[in-house]
């Protein structure tokens, strides 16, 4: 099969089969990402218009089996400790499956808020690793829970501000080098908090546009290799800044499509590499922002279907490319 088009039926069946790989060692070695993987798979299906391809009840029961009763958050897998990374995925799945009544909102909001540090950043769990990724997880989750009102916004924004670098980008912590994925988490958190005035749009837009390489793909930092996942990290930030036209959409679309596995389905980091669900969602998400025909609109701030976010009244002022006709 040719990779000049998005092979939707093949990707749907690839995602459906992910849970059947129990005789594969890699499946077991990635249990620490299981709940994230379910969120990636579900979101990819929703953007391809096939949310029905995985059983809703089974998924909700799995999410609830990852609940860590002692901490009051979700772990990545039954029996694993609660962590913000898994907690956000759990909440996102419940929102997308319209099953928020299953969640103890007070408890989980309390868990999330307890992880904010005096500097304004969030730790991922009680063991104290800090990162702007966790700050985004907290802000996104609290927003979905309708509990942003309990957050110290000034302190939170203050930390993001102190991570801003001379190139307009943001890093993982104060003083850390700009990286496209950290740019996404910081810009999206500022969008949710209504504080995009903290972004130097011209400088950051320039830096993001320079992430595109001659083969059309995007990298995450200067002088690094392209990778499909940056299609989302860079494009989401560009769409929040309303600068998606600053890169060549046609060339990037062709690059993402060329990283598909035309036999087994799924998308890889680069053409010819092994596929995984992480690159599959971020490839599909990138294509949605680029206006690829037939896809559902993705909200780049929350990385969920735009319709779901609009229904909750949470839509921010971002701009993707218009959806093209086939």
């Amino acid at each position: 099969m040719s990779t000049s088009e998005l092979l939707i039926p093949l990707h749907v069946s690839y995602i459906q089969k992910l849970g059947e790989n129990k005789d594969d060692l890699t499946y077991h070695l990635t249990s620490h990402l299981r709940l994230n993987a379910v969120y990636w798979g579900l979101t990819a299906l929703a953007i391809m218009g096939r949310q029905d391809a995985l059983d809703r009840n089974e998924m909700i029961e799995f999410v609830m089996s990852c609940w860590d009763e002692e901490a009051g958050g979700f772990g990545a897998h039954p029996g694993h400790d609660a962590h913000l990374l898994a907690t956000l995925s759990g909440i996102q799945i419940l929102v997308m499956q319209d099953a928020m009544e299953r969640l103890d909102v007070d408890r989980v909001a309390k868990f999330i808020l307890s992880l904010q540090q005096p500097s304004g950043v969030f730790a991922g769990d009680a063991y104290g690793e800090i990162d702007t990724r966790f700050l985004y997880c907290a802000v996104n989750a609290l927003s979905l829970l309708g509990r942003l009102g309990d957050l110290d916004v000034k302190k939170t924004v203050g930390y993001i501000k102190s991570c801003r670098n001379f190139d307009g980008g943001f890093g993982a912590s104060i003083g850390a080098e700009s990286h496209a994925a950290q740019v996404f988490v910081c810009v999206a958190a500022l969008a949710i908090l209504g504080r995009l005035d903290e972004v130097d749009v011209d400088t950051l837009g320039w830096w993001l546009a320079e992430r595109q390489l001659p083969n059309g793909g995007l990298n995450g930092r200067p002088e690094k290799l392209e990778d499909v996942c940056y299609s989302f990290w860079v494009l989401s930030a560009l769409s929040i800044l309303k600068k998606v036209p600053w890169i060549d959409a046609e060339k990037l679309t062709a690059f993402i499509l060329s990283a598909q596995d035309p036999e087994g389905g799924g998308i890889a980091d680069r053409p010819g590499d092994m596929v995984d669900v992480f690159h599959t969602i971020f490839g599909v998400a990138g294509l949605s922002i680029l206006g690829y025909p037939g896809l559902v609109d993705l909200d780049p701030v929350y990385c969920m279907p735009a319709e779901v976010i609009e229904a909750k009244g949470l839509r921010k002022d971002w701009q993707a490319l218009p959806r093209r006709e086939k």
Partner: protein
Amino acid sequence: MHGVKRVKPTPQALEARKQKERSKIQEFLALSEDILQRKKDNDFSEDAFKQTTRLLHVNPEFYTVWNYRRTILVKGLSVNRTEEEINKLLADELVMTMAALKSHPKVYWIWNHRRWCLERVPNGPGAEGEDTANGWKKSAWDQELYVVEKLLDADARNFLAWNYRRYVLAGMPVPRPDTLELAYTSKKIQANFSNFSAWHQRSKEFDLVRNAMYTDPDDQSVWVYHRWLVGTRASRGLLEREIEAIDELLGEQPDSKWCMESIVHYSVMLLKDHAAEVDVEQLTEKTRRLLGELEVQDPFRRQRYRELGEILAVLLS
């Protein structure tokens, strides 16, 4: 999965691999189950600790097991121990995480565990006021810089290692002079000019940047850094000096996108902030010509160049 080539195995090869993996999977699942059960039972024994070592060796991403390991260290292994024994315990942890980082330099959880251990190294055997008073702590933190340098030798762009380096420098019991850090980043930059991570670590310096521009005008790390050095509110003199230097380079490299883009940027700054002191007409004409050239040389970003042209038009109206 990053950078792993896709191969389509024959059905026979696939079956053979599954056969081979079957026992490994069983062993791994049995070990995971044993550990999660012990964790539930609040087992803080030496045995439980050894099990976590075995599992983390196979899968250093299993964050719950790192958490449990720390709980065992606190609630089990360090109970009723002398400071010296605790120092030894943590030193062993540092050795263990070093080995793990060698094979998995980008696993956040290992770096995290290392931080946790480092912060708990006791001060030292001597009484307060003596040289040895914080001897253990000092030598542990000093050792960390050496460890990070080893990892940066292997991959000079590993941002987890650079983040850790900053963390160590900020927390050292005896702070290291800034000049030493500057010397280190200079060495890293000279080894490879496109090492943006090292550029990032240092403060202002025009000469080094100019040198790097001439060595490799296609290297964007240098241009981004240069723009920061110039800043957002530069004097006319500085802007004209830098434009002149880049003009000269453009003369030698007439297709250089970065030369053109930078001259455009600094010219727009001149027109915005110093219009009364420059030849507006000539500068505008030159900027327009370069923007037109950029649309041809760098078509991916043509829309950005068009928008810059529009800004120019608004500026002049």
